[in-house]
């Protein structure tokens, strides 16, 4: 196993770890902004994984196109979700606090 091989194995393992961290954050938080940030963390890992798979399968152009589309869709989704969450915060439908702190305040 050469040194270069181990480098790219590490890249793939890191992308899977980042996806896992994002999913964990998505499951553990109740604040919508934190959930959105966790979703974006997971998206970054998936994007790296897609480009890496395209790279090892020797389909760099196709994976570039998929990556460009993914970045565009994710940017639009992030802007739309932040606007909706901010509007809901402003109208008072959502709380900035996490679920655990809301439970502490209720007590």
């Amino acid at each position, binding site marked *: 196993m050469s040194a270069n091989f181990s480098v790219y194995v590490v890249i793939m*393992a890191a992308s899977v770890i980042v996806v896992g961290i994002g999913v964990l954050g998505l499951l553990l938080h109740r604040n919508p902004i934190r959930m959105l940030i966790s979703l974006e963390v997971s998206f970054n890992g998936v994007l790296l994984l897609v480009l*890496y798979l395209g790279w090892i399968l*020797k389909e760099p152009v196709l994976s570039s196109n998929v*990556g460009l589309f993914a970045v565009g869709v994710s940017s639009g989704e992030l802007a739309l979700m932040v606007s909706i969450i*901010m509007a809901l915060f402003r109208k008072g439908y959502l709380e900035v606090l996490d679920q655990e702190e809301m439970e502490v305040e209720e007590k």
Partner: protein
Amino acid sequence: MEVGLFAATLLLVLFSSLAVSHKSMIYSALFLALLGLTNASLFFALGFAIVAFVQVVVYVGASVLFLIVSISMLREPASRFVAPRYGLLGLAGVVVFGSLLAYFFGTSANVYPHLISYGSIALQLVELGHYGVVLLFLLLLVALVSSITVATGDKK
């Protein structure tokens, strides 16, 4: 080169964990921006220079910055993060799974990055049809218009 790649992957994991677990939401969004920049550096190292450029300009430069500015306008209380009970176990499982996946799928890895030109990407887009590009343009347009509409909506 290899040391830089190792450092970038370590920074990737570090920034992702900090973005998920930091107390302040503004710092979480800031770490998300740093995560995007680190990701772009890895794209560049793999040879996807155009995707890295779009990631920096569109994703980090526009979307995540918009997220940071929006969060900074909130009156954020001091929040605390309670460590998950099974978080470390789940993280260890993810590490093992990632290592196994990398072992089985990484055996055909080429050690040199591919050289991708903008012309080849555009040519494949034309070959695949324009519907995807039109759909993406419409999606971004709808997202922009709805964001502006929601942000300038009725005030309480």
